[in-house]
């Protein structure tokens, strides 16, 4: 009984953790090229989910909805880049933090007024009836989320390694100045990264919406966790976010079972501070030697 409970807790927690990881991955994409992240990423997830839901309600087939949602996410990502990030990066200021928060606020308010303040279900063809796997209850819906997370991250990595555009991305990430000398436009690459990041956010929204439901606040709790996962893993850690995400998710579950549900987040937070204290660039991040 006991091991079974632990296994169930770990699996449920890990699934949430994968979602954190996917959103965290979106942070990484923009950080790699521009050393900036979108603090309104949660609103991107939410707006894309609402948009996809609207497509479904207009009778669009499921595949079309996914494409539409991804395009919408990419467009929002580009908008954030243009309106919030580009100017701040040119001025070498940290204005992007505030501007991206502000755009998030705008998106939140727009969603509240356009789609309403209520949480709504997101229809899905995949069943939510539990299956038994080694005594653990898991739904096909949850499995689809896990598969989706890996598929999205895999595809993006493939894109980065196998296509010319993707290699330009990697070049700018590795050394922006050198890449520019080679004739790669950093501005374009940063746009690309924000577009991609928007798509990843949209995919995250579509994947989790059937579980979390769609509402203006659907991502506000997720986004802080995702941020934590991204930073603790290291903002340049690649697949490191998956491990940290799973770990954090499982830890939260186990804490709320064994310590008490009110303390759910506490051990994670303490570990997080400790992890940062020991490895400021993240557990899987690349440590840099101070040079002058």
């Amino acid at each position, binding site marked *: 009984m006991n091991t079974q409970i632990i296994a169930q807790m770990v699996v*449920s927690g890990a*699934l949430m953790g994968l979602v954190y990881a996917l959103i965290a991955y979106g942070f990484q994409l923009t950080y790699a090229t521009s050393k900036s992240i979108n603090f309104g990423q949660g609103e991107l997830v939410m707006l894309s989910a609402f948009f996809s839901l609207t497509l479904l309600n207009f009778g669009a087939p499921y595949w079309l909805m996914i494409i539409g949602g991804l395009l919408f996410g990419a467009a929002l990502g580009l908008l954030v880049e243009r309106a919030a990030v580009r100017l701040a990066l040119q001025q070498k200021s940290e204005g992007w933090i505030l501007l991206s928060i502000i755009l998030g606020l705008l998106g939140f308010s727009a969603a*509240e007024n356009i789609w309403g303040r209520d*949480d709504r279900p997101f229809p899905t063809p995949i069943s939510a009836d*539990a299956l038994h796997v080694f005594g653990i209850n*898991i739904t096909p819906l949850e499995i689809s989320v896990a598969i989706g997370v890996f598929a999205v991250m895999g595809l993006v990595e493939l894109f980065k390694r196998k296509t010319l555009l993707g290699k330009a991305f990697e070049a700018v990430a590795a050394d922006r100045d050198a890449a520019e000398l080679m004739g790669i436009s950093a501005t374009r690459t940063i746009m690309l990264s924000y577009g991609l990041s928007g798509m990843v956010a949209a995919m995250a929204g579509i994947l989790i919406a059937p579980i979390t439901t769609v509402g203006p606040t659907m991502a506000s709790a997720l986004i802080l966790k995702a941020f934590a996962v991204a930073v603790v893993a290291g903002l340049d850690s690649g697949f490191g976010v998956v491990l940290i995400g799973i770990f954090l998710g499982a830890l939260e579950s186990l804490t*709320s*079972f064994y310590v008490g*549900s009110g303390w759910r987040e506490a051990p994670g937070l303490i570990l997080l501070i400790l992890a940062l204290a020991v490895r400021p660039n993240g557990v899987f991040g690349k440590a840099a030697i101070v040079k002058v």
Partner: protein
Amino acid sequence: MKKTLLATVLLGAVAQTALAADVVKIALTGPFSGGSAPMGTSMRDGAKLAISEINLAGGIKVGSKKMKIEIVERDDEGKNERGALIAQELAAMDDLSGVIGTVNTGIALSGDKHLQEKGITKIITPAAGSASMTQWANKADKPGVKELSIFRFAAHDGIQSAMVVEHAINQKFSKVAILHDATNYGVSGRDDLLDQIKKQGNKLEVVATEKFNIGDKDMTAQLLRAKAGGAQAILIWGIGPELAAVSNGMAKNEMKIPLVGGWTLSMSNYIDNAGKNGDGTLMPQTFIEEAITPRAKSFIDGYHKAYNVTRIPSPVSAAQGYDAVYIFAAAVEQAQSENTGKIKLALEDLKKPVHGVITTWQHPFSTWNPANVESHEAFRRSDTVMGMISEGHVVFANQADRARLIKNASK
């Protein structure tokens, strides 16, 4: 820059006082954005529906003239600080006749003192947390206030938790788990439940008391604790989306036990998001969106038409907002004045029955007695029925209640 801002504040205050003439000014407050917005907006829209009906009929008859109702609308976002500031703002309006609203108990606790200080009449609806009224009552260490201008028009948690516990006992359960959210509402609901279990003879063993945060989606841990303890029912206090997460989590973990909880389980964001997993969920209700009486029919149709919906997001909030306005209007008419103090006195002794959508209100409030909060509470146990979710709608859990209400209305 600062000076001009100050000037505009003052200007605003002046502009507001200049407008008063032959109108009854009522403020509607509540969370119209953020997490508890479905309740706030339903309440507001229900109240506005009543107000537009009254105004369409010419207004409230005061002396020889008819006074129309003017609305001041304030969004408190469910934040205590905003709530307190809004209460201060309302308290400073000289011509305000009264306030209707508040969803979050915390806001009643942080803001109502400003209204009470100025003696401005307020009808709290739909906030159900006990503390919003007990803060004025006698306590062990200090006596309550002598005069109170705050009334409540909602089935307070004491009534609701009594019904929930009673139901569990009637079903011959012996072990239950309590789940609640980490907000003021959830925590005080938990305390009320524990209190009622004791009051009703300690017949229930609480095998798990679990918390969840607003925005939590994964309830596995809490549910497994309940399951491990052998709970036969889950008593729950929280708000829509998280409640749905609990319901869905129960299905996933194959816990086929009843879910019983506060009135918020009737909100559309629970019903929709729990889907078929929500069927059979029980909760105390003051209003069920079913056209069992002509009044209910006209209210429901009116709401659907006015706000272009096919279902009210929170029917209880809407109906209570609607009836609260009619009760307030009746008090204005009886007082023959838009003066808030006179309205308060009239409310404490309403002579004529008010035909509302929930029921026909006979003398809902009486003169404030700090030893008995019931004096300013409109709802009694008998005004509250058990509702049940069935195929996406809230229906009467007991047909006897339905029949009783139809009979009451036809009287």
